[in-house]
């Protein structure tokens, strides 16, 4: 097994993971395969945050859900704490449902508006048969305090529909934390929130991480929040890893032309911006039913070399310490 970036002290290892979906364009037509995740190898260390970044449809959510067996992989292996769980029966995976949690994108869809905050937070404890009634009450209080919904005895009696988006997302975070997980898959946890509350949720996640050494798979299309929240960045393009490395190294010196374009496309506030064109990529991401040959990025790549890029699939190569790139021309 070869994992770029190493797998020491890993809580989760993805080994050549592959998730394809079967879709039919018409009833009775031959099903086609959507190559949503293809040959992704990646480890998440205990207490580490890895940001998975990429355009819509690049396979980020599929990767996150496959990693915790919410979607069945088509190929490759998933290892949790060194144990191969790729084919473990669901009924033997209750412990995984406790050790790994998901914070979803849309606080309005993920938190049942007709439930009280108390009920939303108590439910996972009941499902996993944890504690007496008093103990559960105590844990709900502590969870609310840790996400700064204070005073907890007021907030726990509110119905979710009475909360703002930011408050609902805090409830979703508290619910994910209440079973004391080791790994959290946070799928765009702040993209629906306003600028002024976005940072406070990310700060909260970061604090939980340092206090309890929880590992995060932080899924986002926003490189800027990844910079401030993650230890490492994995850039996905059309179902494959394009670049992987420590945040500092990747953003100081993006080696993949796709990462470079992604960085150019996100403006920091600057009055000079209006006088220049953004170096954006033309076209659209490719179809994952028949992804481009060779490097999947070649049809949009500004530096693609004919005879090479559309022929050979680029391997992930370590060009800087811990910093990998899948591009034939990167040096």
């Amino acid at each position, binding site marked *: 097994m070869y994992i770029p970036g190493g797998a020491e002290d890993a809580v989760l290892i993805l080994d050549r993971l592959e998730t394809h979906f079967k879709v039919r364009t018409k009833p009775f037509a031959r099903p086609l395969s959507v190559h949503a995740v293809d040959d992704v190898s990646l480890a998440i260390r205990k207490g580490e945050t890895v940001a998975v970044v990429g355009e819509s449809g690049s396979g980020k959510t599929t990767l996150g859900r496959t990693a915790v067996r919410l979607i069945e992989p088509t190929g490759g292996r998933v290892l949790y704490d060194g144990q191969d769980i790729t084919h473990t029966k669901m009924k033997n995976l209750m412990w995984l449902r406790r050790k790994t949690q998901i914070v979803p994108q849309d606080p309005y869809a993920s938190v049942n508006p007709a439930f009280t905050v108390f009920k939303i937070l108590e439910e996972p404890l009941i499902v996993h048969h944890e504690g007496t009634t008093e103990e559960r009450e105590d844990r709900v209080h502590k969870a609310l305090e840790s996400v700064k919904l204070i005073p907890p005895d007021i907030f726990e009696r509110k119905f979710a529909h009475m909360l703002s988006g930011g408050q609902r997302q805090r409830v979703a975070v508290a619910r994910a934390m209440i079973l004391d997980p080791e790994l959290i898959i946070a799928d765009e946890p702040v993209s629906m929130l306003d600028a002024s509350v976005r940072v406070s949720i990310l700060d909260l996640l970061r604090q939980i991480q340092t206090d309890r050494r929880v590992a995060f798979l932080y899924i986002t299309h926003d490189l800027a929040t990844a910079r401030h929240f993650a230890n490492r960045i994995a850039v996905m393009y059309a179902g494959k890893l394009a670049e992987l490395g420590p945040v500092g190294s990747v953003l100081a010196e993006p080696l993949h032309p796709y990462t470079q374009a992604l960085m150019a496309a996100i403006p920091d*506030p*600057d009055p000079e911006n209006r006088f220049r064109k953004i170096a954006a990529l033309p076209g659209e991401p490719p179809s994952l039913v028949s992804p481009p040959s060779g490097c999947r990025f070649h049809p949009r790549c500004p530096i693609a070399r004919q005879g090479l890029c559309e022929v050979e699939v680029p391997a992930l190569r370590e060009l800087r310490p811990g910093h990998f790139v899948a591009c034939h021309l990167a040096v």
Partner: protein
Amino acid sequence: MDGISFDLERGQTLAIVGESGCGKTSTASAILRMLPRNVAKYEGRVEFDGKDLMTLNNEDFRTQVRWRAVSIVFQGAMNALSPMIPVGRQVAEPLMLHLDMDKEEARAKTEEAMESVGLPRYTVDRYAHELSGGMKQRVVIAMALVMRPSLVILDEPTSALDVMTQANIMNLLKQLKEEQGLSYIFITHDLGLSSELADWVGIMYAGQLVEVGPAETVFPKPTHPYTQKLLSSVPRLKSEEKPDSIPGTPPDLTSPPKGCRFHPRCPFVFEKCKSFEPPFFGQTDRSACWLLEAGG
């Protein structure tokens, strides 16, 4: 929205920036007199090219101003395209309705408009579901341009799009501005994005404009505490600077705080802020904050 005043020179862009629910779309609707049924109060003045638009009756406003002089790309418009009618017909509609063009002439103008937004001419015969998000957004922009207005209001024109598609649309808007000498009112919640077009920046909070000034001064040196906080809450991609959060949440607009509406969240709040509404202070960069009162 409450007591909004600003002016905009021809060929310039004003970006209106603020958080969800602060009244950005309401401001746009008020300019175009597209008011929701339950509007309780609508007063003030809108002047365009030296003409007081408030003196026009609804019929004159509809035929002389809306679309022809001032047009709008509505928030979420690309998802409101009809699935049943080719997009070209939807773009051509105002031409036939307001300019009495015949079919051929309208089609030719529509094809031109498609080309100007970077779409092939044959797009006119396509249906919305055959187009990608970026292409639909271009159609909606063509729709706003087809009557050749001089001012276009862009309400979150890219917020449903991916970063790369967004970048391409921003490039298009820059190019159109240059080629056609357009003026824009660019509404967005994204400060970074606003700097892609803004010559002037207006910051809204809880239904009011709290700061208006040139991009050159507002981005590096904002004077209103809310603008300062908002700017420092933006995670920067190209610098190490850590983003800072703003404590609290925006107020409920059915009963906004007395005095300065930002006072419950303001780090510099003092007694006066709690009971008296601050007027604008400052020359080119104007802010409604008591800290800026002469000598303050």
